[in-house]
């Protein structure tokens, strides 16, 4: 019986998230379109509202090309690894009090573990396609993801010190006592580091070196087509959603509103997540791409010292306050 309820919950979660993924692509195209004084998708449905559905159907029926030289089993497995790892990290996100699918006490650590697993999918895709562009894209992506993972991990230490837990729901609860109900007030540097590292971790502009169209065609997904290509995209957008949710949970007060506005808690959560997603898109429409050495320099020479300093200062302040 319990398992049946769980299955229904999982089905709802997956359906909602897939719908979110589909319409995140729509919003992205629409918002960037309007920022560049274009209309964005307009033809399929009213103001292009059915465009993501059409895209999904199209990629479902597209030919699945497997290059001759590819390492076939790895080539076939890579998108599924990527997608499954990203989907699993959805299970620990608390959308409201008690609304996490799995309320485990190492939630934050679990998210890091899963995002590392997803980068296996990327490097396998790059290697197994047996093409120069994909190999370069895969290696670049790997180096980028592991560099910025340190920055993310260190930036969240301050939040852990303040809340004293890794459980995502309890982190949100701990913020209820702090000023304004958000850790961003007491941890602005950590949020700054986290936000930049989050852009790099999800391979977004201005850090989208692994898929830099102008030099690497499409990076590690160059050889993929049809539904497998779509799966990498789904994984990327679920990754954006997960990272934005972590930002909301750790810094923006989760499902609590900043003011005493009586709103259904998950709505606050989703509003905040979409605010961060909007920032993602806004940045994409605004900024040019970094060079690779600049990207590495930002990660290793700026973000890591900043987050270490943040730990120092947080520790000092907490000891003095005691």
């Amino acid at each position: 019986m319990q398992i049946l309820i769980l299955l229904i919950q999982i089905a709802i979660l997956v359906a909602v998230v897939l719908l979110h993924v589909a319409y995140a692509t729509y919003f992205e195209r629409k918002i960037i379109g309007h920022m560049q004084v274009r209309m964005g998708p307009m033809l399929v449905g009213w103001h292009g509202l059915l465009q993501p559905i059409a895209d999904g159907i199209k990629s479902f029926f597209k030919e699945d090309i497997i290059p001759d030289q590819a390492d076939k089993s790895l080539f076939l497995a890579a998108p599924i690894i990527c997608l499954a790892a990203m989907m699993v990290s959805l299970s620990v996100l608390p959308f409201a009090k008690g609304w996490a699918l799995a309320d485990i006490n190492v939630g934050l650590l679990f998210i890091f573990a899963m995002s590392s697993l997803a980068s296996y999918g990327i490097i396998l895709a790059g290697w197994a396609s047996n093409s120069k562009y994909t190999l370069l894209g895969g290696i670049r992506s790997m180096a980028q993801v592991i560099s910025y993972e340190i920055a993310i991990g260190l930036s969240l230490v301050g939040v852990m010190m303040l809340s004293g837990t890794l459980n995502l729901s309890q982190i949100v609860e701990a913020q209820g006592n702090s000023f304004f109900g958000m850790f961003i007030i007491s941890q602005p540097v950590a949020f700054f580091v986290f936000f930049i590292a989050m852009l790099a971790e999800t391979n977004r502009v201005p850090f989208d070196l692994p898929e830099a169209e102008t030099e690497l065609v499409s990076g590690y997904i160059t050889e993929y087509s049809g539904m497998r290509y779509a799966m990498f995209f789904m994984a990327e957008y679920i990754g954006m959603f997960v990272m934005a949710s972590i930002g909301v949970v750790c810094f923006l007060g989760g499902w609590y509103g900043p003011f005493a506005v009586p709103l259904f808690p998950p709505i606050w959560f989703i509003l905040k997540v979409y605010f961060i997603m909007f920032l993602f898109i806004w940045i994409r429409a605004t900024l040019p791409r970094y060079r690779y050495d600049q990207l590495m320099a930002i990660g290793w020479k700026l973000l890591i010292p900043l987050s270490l300093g943040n730990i120092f200062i947080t520790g000092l302040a907490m000891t003095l306050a005691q």
Partner: protein
Amino acid sequence: MPGSYLPSEYLPILMLLVTGIAFGVLVLWIGKLFRVQRPYFEKLVAYESGNPPTEEPRMRFSVKFYTIAILFIVFDVEAIFLYPWALVFNKLGLFALLEMFIFIILLLIGYVYAWKKGNLEWDN
């Protein structure tokens, strides 16, 4: 009884993992019944801007990626060591603070060494 502990709060994670894999496999497998497959030589050749591929695709790449990987292991282990410290920081107080300052300073020495050695530079 040792060994009888069932981490039941991890059950949803396992189920979601199975769902994720099943979703990927099923979508591809069902799609196989509908989509056209017309492979021919040119389509199956690795993409290289329209030219026939030259040389081995798995070429040698910069040694810098290896040093980054080594640095990553050092710093990731450091971050993992910081987590339990951060969780009990409130209970240990000043002792924990000094302890961790020493730990971080030791690591900073290695970090500065790597920086001075030029392991963080990409343009030389």
